[in-house]
């Protein structure tokens, strides 16, 4: 890598290894994410996606290899991880510098459709509401790298689409780099510039998605990519189709 290239990067990972005991969950993994690039990461459950995300969030130091990430990062975890002792809006602005916190919290909560819940305790939120709060908490930070670990997992189909739009919109406005971990191949194809398939501790495949935005599910290229990804995940299209039906 020469200097100019790495200047364009939001994430640069070389030879990253993470072991839990004898088992290397991440095994000499390389990864580049350009500034402003939207990358989706898919892979079987337990293959190490969250582990990789934690490392990029600077939360896991039991690693070998080189990892470079921007200073300003925001994370939405797989579980919402809200502080139970803070009302929803204070959770959103926790750690946020600058004044006018209430208004900024309200704005972020309005974006995820939760204005009416800003004063309640997290304990009364539904699973999806908690997840949207956690998403609002990440979005309000205006990061250079946004790390999302299955942030739409607990949402119903309609809210999910809204949340996807929200992330896409924010990304287009802010042009931050995004790493989105997801199990949903269609979601990955709708949102990402590039889909990474993780397997056996490395990025096994990196598939660019050059479709025009906004993307439509009925595009034939979309269907072809979807089939290819499902193949890579070891799911035959037939099974997936039946499941979806």
């Amino acid at each position, binding site marked *: 890598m020469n200097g100019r290239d790495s200047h364009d990067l939001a994430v640069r990972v070389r030879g990253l290894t993470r072991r839990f005991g004898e088992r290397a969950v991440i095994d000499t993994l390389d990864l580049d994410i350009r500034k402003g690039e939207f990358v989706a990461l898919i892979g079987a459950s337990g293959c190490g996606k969250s582990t990789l995300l*934690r490392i990029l*969030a*600077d*939360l896991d130091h039991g690693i070998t290899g080189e990892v470079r990430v921007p200073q300003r*990062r*925001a*994370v939405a*975890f797989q*579980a919402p*991880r809200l*502080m*139970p*002792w*803070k009302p929803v809006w204070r959770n959103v602005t*926790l*750690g*946020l*510098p600058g004044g006018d916190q209430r208004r900024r919290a309200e704005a972020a909560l309005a974006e995820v459709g939760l204005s009416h819940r800003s004063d309640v*305790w*997290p*304990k009364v939120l539904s699973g999806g509401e908690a997840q949207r709060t956690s998403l609002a*908490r990440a979005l309000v*930070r205006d990061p250079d790298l946004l790390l999302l670990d299955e942030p739409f997992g607990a949402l119903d189909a309609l809210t999910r689409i809204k949340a996807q739009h929200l992330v896409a919109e924010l990304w287009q406005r802010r042009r931050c780099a995004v790493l989105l971990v997801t199990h949903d191949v269609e979601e990955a194809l709708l949102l990402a510039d590039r889909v990474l398939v993780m397997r056996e501790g490395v990025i096994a495949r990196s598939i660019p998605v050059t479709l025009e935005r906004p993307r439509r599910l009925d595009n034939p290229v979309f269907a072809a990519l979807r089939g290819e990804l499902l193949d890579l995940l070891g799911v035959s299209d037939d099974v997936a189709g039946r499941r979806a039906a």
Partner: protein
Amino acid sequence: MTSGVATLSREAPSPTLGRAVPRLRAEAHPHASVTDAPELVLVQPEAEKRRGLPRPLRRAIGPVLLVAIWHVLSVTDVLSPTVLAGPATVLSSAASLWATGELQAAILASLGRAASGLAIGGTIGVTLAVISGLFRLGEDLIDSTMQMLRTVPNIALIPLFIIWLGIGEAPKVALIALATAFPLYLNVYAGIRNVDQTLVEAARTLGLSRPAMIRHVILPGALPNALVGLRYSLGVAWLALVFGEQVNATAGVGYLMNNAREFFQTDVIVVCLVVYALLGLIVDFIVRLLERVLLAWRPAFSGA
């Protein structure tokens, strides 16, 4: 609710009314038994479940019953006044102690001791707990020492305190301080160490500085345990107070009690015991109130 369910099952013929259909099929099928049809259980709304006395009244039943039995035993002379004065006598001597101002003075003196002991002990306990909870170096230096010292019975230190501090207020306050420091230390320390690691991580990704982390994450997370510690501390503060006041006190509830012992006034002794109990109740009530206000966020089980 009840009538609704009953009507549904009686109007069974319509196939859209679910449950009744398998039952009909079950009867038609020779292999299936009738027990295949699931029995419906009525979900009871809470409003219907709650019956009988309101809770504050229910809580009063035990104490009232106890006093009633005591009264009956006294008026029937089963309990002679030299063993234990009856409630009526106790009440009248409480009234006369109040009229002379002795009781108020004693209560104030005792409360003052308990409060200053608790303030000193609490400050020490909480400070040490925060240091050893937050820093591994602090833990190594403080925790083993505290764990060792806490096994020494406080009461056994009274003679030493008297030698060191004389027989005035100091040894009594010191005893209370010592007794209250440990429960607070143990619980605050455990509270800090029990704070959910995933929340600490989340806070770290939010860019919280170390002081902000302590203030917004660690201490609120330790608060439930800290309040448990406070409750224990208040309990032992009373205990230490009673013991401390047996030593050459010149004021306070314990002094009143010691005096009464000299003259076999079981009524005054009982007045003092009741005062201790009431003060304990009031303090407990205050802590409960604190818990309700400070822990409103907690999704905790509150008893069935």
